[in-house]
């Protein structure tokens, strides 16, 4: 337990009542919270447990102190509980800390004491950088489920792309901005115009002219080349708008080659995000108090529909029926046994493979399924706290470093997000910067993040002593000094089995689209006959009008890119 002063612990809880549920959910990360809310919304009885004292699991926003202890503490082994039912075979759960290779550094003693005094004023995202596109799946789901009424957002002020030798350049979010760009020739602008007209016609159902089926299936990067777009624009479209991770020009390393049809979808989402909500200048939104508000909002939605919440409650084992090997329930650290038809498990829980169980064939087989995990690479994450912004007069901004922008061997893009105190996540005068990239091993990931940080920031000295590929710096600019930073690695794991399902681990994306797609799919598998958030019925619920976006804004400043 990370909070010794916590006056509440599971031992002081009354026993959980009832003991039978349709669904037990363990962990309160975003996927789990969405499943709990969706299942509660269709009338399932749901018990939602979390061993932590906070909501959000890997998607929590934490105070600096809590974040540090979460990252550095080996996970509390749940204490053994006695008692229980002999009809069932207990399988102990093993918790693997979702973060590994943790490094934390302070700049100096003065910063350390400043941060200690202000620790509680920080709400630092564990899964950062994260932001939402105004027209993306998370926003639509928030509104559809009614969870949006518990949250407030602000728009991200600016989006930048990092260019080798040139530093930060604005991601042009309107046609006007592109055409004002002095670095493009008239010919290039005309090629762009032709491209946008084509995309616009393609997306307009009333227009005949479409991008050919053949072109829709080719790599987007080839299509952009075919359209003769300048390299700079190509790079912005691929990495800063479609947000792809791998170098699209390098077939050997690229694991996520984007097809034209998906690229067009990304452009459409970006275009309908800009200007969807008044007061959001660009395409991106960020929640006040941090990303950890998202799981909380869905949990609150679930609670309103009757879901029971118990934090600080570790689950120590799964109860399996001895004969059939079927999942029956869970045993809590309090010793209580609870039963459910289905179980959703935080992906950081596993069961050990138990070779000694040769006698129980079915059971062994099932347990082996449970211990199978599919590791699909890693995400490296970095967090920096500074006392000045990477761009004067801009508080909240996103930065994308396309592949090869930092050094030639850089095969993945790096995403970064700076958030200031007007989003209530840090004390006045400070900024939090989040960085992430996909990688194959921890050292490679950290090297990339450090190079990205070094391009814009001054890291604490000890971090700089390693051989980091040097990035040319504009000596005229004074780079903000990092007073605290942290690095950690998360594995991308998927697993799934009959009545026990594991939610996806945090991915390397800036938004939640893939995660929520996987969550909706999981819900569909669990409850094939139920709707994922049916239309709201209670008068407290906001109306669900399903109006996709407000009328398009013709103004150039907030302008929609895809206009004829």
């Amino acid at each position: 337990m990370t909070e010794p002063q916590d006056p509440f612990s599971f031992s002081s809880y009354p026993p959980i009542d009832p003991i039978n549920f349709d669904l037990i959910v363990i962990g309160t990360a975003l996927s789990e919270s969405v499943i709990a809310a969706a299942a509660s919304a269709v009338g399932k009885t749901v018990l939602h447990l979390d061993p932590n004292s906070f909501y959000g699991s890997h998607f929590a926003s934490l105070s600096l102190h809590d974040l540090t202890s979460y990252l550095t503490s080996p996970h509390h082994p749940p204490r053994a509980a006695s008692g229980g039912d002999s009809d069932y075979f207990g399988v102990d759960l093993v918790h693997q800390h979702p973060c590994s290779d943790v490094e934390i550094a302070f700049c100096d003693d003065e910063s350390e004491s400043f941060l200690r005094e202000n620790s509680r004023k920080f709400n630092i995202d564990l899964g950062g950088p994260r932001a939402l596109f105004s027209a993306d799946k998370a926003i639509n789901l928030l509104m559809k489920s009614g969870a949006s009424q518990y949250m407030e957002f602000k728009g991200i002020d600016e989006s930048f792309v990092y260019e080798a030798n040139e530093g930060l350049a604005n991601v042009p979010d309107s046609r006007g901005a592109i055409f004002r760009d002095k670095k493009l020739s008239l010919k290039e602008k005309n090629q762009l115009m032709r491209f946008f007209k084509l995309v616009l016609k393609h997306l307009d159902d009333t227009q005949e002219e479409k991008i050919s089926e053949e072109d829709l299936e080719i790599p987007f990067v080839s299509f952009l080349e075919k359209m003769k777009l300048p390299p700079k624009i190509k790079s912005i479209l691929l990495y800063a708008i479609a947000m792809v991770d791998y170098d699209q020009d390098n077939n050997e390393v690229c694991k996520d080659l984007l097809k034209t049809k998906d690229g067009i979808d990304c452009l459409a989402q970006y275009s309908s995000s800009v200007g969807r909500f008044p007061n959001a200048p660009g395409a991106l939104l960020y929640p006040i108090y941090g990303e950890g508000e998202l799981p909380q909002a869905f949990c609150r939605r679930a609670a309103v529909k009757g879901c029971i919440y118990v934090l600080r409650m570790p689950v120590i084992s799964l109860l399996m029926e001895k004969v059939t090997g079927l999942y029956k329930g869970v045993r809590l650290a309090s010793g209580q046994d609870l039963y459910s038809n289905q179980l959703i498990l935080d992906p950081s829980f596993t069961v050990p493979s138990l070779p000694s169980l040769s006698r129980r064939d079915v059971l062994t087989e099932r347990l082996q399924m449970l211990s199978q995990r599919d590791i699909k690479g890693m995400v490296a994450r970095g967090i920096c706290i500074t006392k000045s912004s990477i761009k004067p007069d801009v508080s909240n901004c996103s930065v994308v470093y396309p592949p090869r922008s930092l050094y030639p061997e850089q095969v993945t893009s790096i995403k970064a997000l700076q958030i200031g105190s007007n989003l209530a996540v840090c004390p006045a005068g400070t900024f939090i910067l989040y960085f992430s990239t996909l990688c194959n091993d921890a050292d490679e990931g950290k090297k990339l993040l450090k190079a990205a940080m070094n391009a814009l920031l001054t890291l604490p000295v000890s971090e700089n002593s390693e051989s980091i590929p040097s990035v040319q710096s504009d000596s005229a600019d004074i780079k903000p000094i990092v007073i605290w930073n942290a690095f950690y690695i998360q594995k991308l794991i998927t697993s799934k089995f009959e009545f026990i399902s594991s939610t996806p681990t945090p991915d390397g994306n800036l938004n939640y689209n893939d995660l929520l797609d996987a969550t909706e799919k999981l819900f569909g598998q669990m409850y094939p006959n139920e709707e994922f958030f049916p239309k709201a019925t209670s008068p407290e619920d906001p109306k669900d009008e399903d109006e996709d976006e407000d009328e398009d804004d013709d103004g150039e400043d907030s302008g929609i890119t895809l206009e004829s």
Partner: protein
Amino acid sequence: MATIGHNNLNAKLCYFHQVLLGDMGAGKSSLVLRFVKGQFLEFQESTIGAAFFSQTLAVNDATVKFEIWDTAGQERYHSLAPMYYRGAAAAIIVYDITSSDSFTRAKKWVQELQKQGNPNMVMALAGNKADLEDKRKVTAEEARVYAEENGLFFMETSAKSATNVNDVFYEIAKRLPRAQPAQNPAGMVLVDRPAEGTRAASCCS
């Protein structure tokens, strides 16, 4: 939460997010129901199904609109999300005068708010079920002393007989600083259609 002042014609309209905390069964929902709808249900079910209520009060020169958040049952195993009370301008901590345990838990809620909540939050301690005098376990004196030591104001209430219910809310409304700069940065609430009223669009900065 956002505070919006309209200064035309001296009519000031203030929005406040208010929360009620306390043990399950202490009477949080009953107090709200009495205040908002003037009703009392002898066997109020555990709260499910409502997220918040709102009630408008005219107090002196201002119109105060309370948005009263319900715990939605998350208090039962002490699992309230910080989002519940983080932006709150006022809190009523409710206990049941017939249960010493509920008073002990109320003190824990006060501790939690002092630790995690908005430092300028107006807090009231309400000893509910004051109509059950013969079953009393917590003396008014004990609670009053505790409230004074912790800077709360204290009243015994009865949602059943309506005693002091409106008074608690009026007293809070009087103590809320009207012209306070928004305690927390105001953002926008997502509304996918032209917003009704001022809330969604105009309180954004």
